[in-house]
């Protein structure tokens, strides 16, 4: 390389260039900083165009001066390696630094400095910043929709209970670990459904909690005396039998007033809404779409041609249409397909529609995992004399599902992000509530605050989910 060493640092004058370069770079940053935070223009004496480009030119020259292959100074080498590798990169780095400095003051002032937090009327929002009072006043609506204020403890209590019961897996000892799958796949959804159906909606009671709890406690106590061999059958039959006996043959009316649910008011699903509805819908769709998707994934790889064709048709149909038309279908077309006196709640219809829709995506993801497994796994399982179901449950699916954790997580993320679409069937979760609040004549003009608020909430949920799936992926990663 016979380049002329023009204005480049070398061994002798390294320090000079270093001081000069850092000085120019700092001056350029300082210029932009003062300009944006204190609206001082250091370079105001220059003509407009030059004044605008001045920091960029200064910074560029400064970075050019301090660019050196290896200097021995740790910070300088890191700086050169990361943001100052060549001229083009230097300009881009400078631009990004300037954009960040420029955009900080308006964002900060909108979010915090000029924003109003106090009070509970629109009048306090006079500043140029955000009006968080609006969010504060409407908080209950954004969280619970039109659910009556006095009854909202029911939603809170249900969610807390469900979270507690969901975290059982963390505390299970090794002895109970093998039942965890059964618990999460069958028992937990059932309990969740009961909670949401009876507790949140206060619906028509055909299951009496008071008797149920007594039956459960009694059967657990009795269960200690049952030999391990029969325990499974015992827990399959006895609790239910006890419940029926208690309810229909023995009446302890005076003892069980406490657990009665008759006192709960019926809240129809049209009044549900806000973030809690987002959670309810995501939760149920998540629970339902997984087994359906798994069934269709297996169906698509089945040896029976007719089952295969039906699965392919199902998957391709749902994947080919947008969710909004599916919800349209569930809203206007589906009632036509049912007997006249047969009525399905619109929330249930929406949940069925979204579950079927997402199930098709889950099916494709799981199919990818099934295809990725080497043939040897199937052959080895068959050579051990396993049948179709045994082979899939104990050998194939555990490995395949491990492979597709990221894909499944992406599908679930898409599901959570799709929940706002239920405005089509007339249900208002958080985004829907925002749109409703925005049109309230007392609170006009705060659309921005509302959307930013919802965006932050959704972002936190989705980001946490994606990080969790990443951790899960790392945890179950096996070398193959």
């Amino acid at each position: 390389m016979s380049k002329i060493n023009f204005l480049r640092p070398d061994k002798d004058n390294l320090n000079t260039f270093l001081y000069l370069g850092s000085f120019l770079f700092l001056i350029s940053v300082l210029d932009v900083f003062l300009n944006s935070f204190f609206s001082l223009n250091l370079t105001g004496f220059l003509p407009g165009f030059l004044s605008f480009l001045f920091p960029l030119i200064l910074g560029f020259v400064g970075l050019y001066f301090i660019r050196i292959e290896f200097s021995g100074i740790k910070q300088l080498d890191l700086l050169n390696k990361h943001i100052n590798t060549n001229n083009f990169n230097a300009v881009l780095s400078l631009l990004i630094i300037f954009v960040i400095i420029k955009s900080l003051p308006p964002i900060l002032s909108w979010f915090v400095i000029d924003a109003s937090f106090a009070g509970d009327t629109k009048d306090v929002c006079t500043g140029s910043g955000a009006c968080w009072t609006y969010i504060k006043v409407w908080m209950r609506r954004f969280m619970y929709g039109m659910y009556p204020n006095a009854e909202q403890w029911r939603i809170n209590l249900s969610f807390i209970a469900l979270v507690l019961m969901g975290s059982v897996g963390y505390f299970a000892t090794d002895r109970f670990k093998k039942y965890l799958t059964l618990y999460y796949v069958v028992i937990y959804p059932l309990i969740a459904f009961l909670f949401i159906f009876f507790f949140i909606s206060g619906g028509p009671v055909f299951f009496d909690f008071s008797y149920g709890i007594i039956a459960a406690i009694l059967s657990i106590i009795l269960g200690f005396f049952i030999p391990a061999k029969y325990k499974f059958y015992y827990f399959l039959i006895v609790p239910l039998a006890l419940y029926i006996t208690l309810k229909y043959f023995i009446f302890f009316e005076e003892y069980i007033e406490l657990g009665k649910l008759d006192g709960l008011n019926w809240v129809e699903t049209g009044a549900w809404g806000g973030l809690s509805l987002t959670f309810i819908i995501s939760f149920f769709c998540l629970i339902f779409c997984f087994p359906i998707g798994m069934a269709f994934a297996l169906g698509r790889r089945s040896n029976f041609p007719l089952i295969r064709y039906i699965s392919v048709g199902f998957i391709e149909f749902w994947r080919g249409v947008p969710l909004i038309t599916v919800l349209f279908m569930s809203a206007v077309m589906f009632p036509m397909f049912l007997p006249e006196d047969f009525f399905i709640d619109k929330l249930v219809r929406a949940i069925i529609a979204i579950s079927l829709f997402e199930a098709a995506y889950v099916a494709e993801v799981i199919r990818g995992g099934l295809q990725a497994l080497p043939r040897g796994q199937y052959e080895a399982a068959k050579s051990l004399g396993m049948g179709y179901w045994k082979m899939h449950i104990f050998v194939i699916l555990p490995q395949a599902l491990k492979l597709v954790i990221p894909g499944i997580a992406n599908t679930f993320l898409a599901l959570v992000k799709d929940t706002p679409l239920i405005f089509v069937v007339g249900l208002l979760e958080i985004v829907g509530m925002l749109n409703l609040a925005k049109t309230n004549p007392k609170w006009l003009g705060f659309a921005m605050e509302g959307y930013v608020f919802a965006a932050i909430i959704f972002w936190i949920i989705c980001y946490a989910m994606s990080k969790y799936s990443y951790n899960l992926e790392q945890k179950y990663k096996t070398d193959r």
Partner: protein
Amino acid sequence: MNFKLKDIVPQLITVTAVVLVFGFFTYNAQINMENRGIDFGYGFLSQESSFDVQFSLIEYDGSHSYFRAYLVGLLNTILVSVIGIIIATILGVIVGVARLSPNYLINKFAAFYVEFFRNIPLLLQIFFWYFAALRALPLPQDAEAIFGVFFLTIKGLYVPAFIWQNFSVFFYSIVAAIIAIIVIRIHAKRVQENQGKQIPVFLISIGLIFILPLLSFLIGGVGISFEVPVLKQLATTSFIYEGGVSLPPELIALTLSLSLYTATFIAECVRAGIQGVGKGQKEAAASIGLTPNQVLKLVIMPQALRIIIPPTTNQYLNLTKNSSLAAAIAYPDLVLVFAGTALMQTGKAIEIVSITMFTYLTLSISISLLMNWYNKKIAIQEK
């Protein structure tokens, strides 16, 4: 015999169940329609629609048929999808490459963009742009011109319209240029295979695509003039721009949010594709004496594209399907015009929803068939 029975029974049960469910639905639908006095049929498509659509690419008003309304909706959907796909691809490729940049700031900036826009529901983004961001734009009378000809106002973006003379000559010149480029490419490939000579196809193509249309201006009598939008007062406080092309705010909000959202996914596809090409490939290519440009063009890109294209096509499909969210902000796309207004007027739920779904289904399946064909074409032939 026993063996065969084992094969047939599960299939028979499944098919019977499916047939029963569909039979149940059809039976109920018939009864319901009889009770409500609705007759099934697609005859309504030729009836007069008698509703208006705000934004339409083809001539349309209330006197046209429902089928015409369907076409208006379909074209609007395609318009949004095509614009969105173009912007999302450009942005996605830039961000995807930026995420691999050794520059820490650029890398983090791109990562921030991806993580930010990907984790917020698309519908929320559409609402944000439409109800919050674009509402902060100035009124038509206060709008300042961008480059003197564009006007970005609360009522939409006004851009100058082209007025062509002899447009067909210009069009044919472009078609001729494209055909010439294809012929030259084929010829160049043959020459290289036979004689090992390389013809600078890229430069010739660039030249052709510029020179032929330019010639059409100079010789072919093609003329072009601009129609700049002009502010016009309707009433004391009501202003509007006349002339030029106006893009409604719904279209802007929709394309903006669709492309910003989809670009994050395309960026991830691009990143995965480039990372998926082994380092050894680059080194091997360099060691046989290819120039850096040739390495990129002949070794890295073909392999990276093989990984990038299938998921990216999926994202294009997603964008097309997501464009149906237009209904939420009243952009007249297929769902709003046809499954919304037309359905309300005719009450033919089954027909209209099925047509709408079938349209999207055709769109997706044709694109995925195309993708499968392309995949097969570029797949590595080794097994």
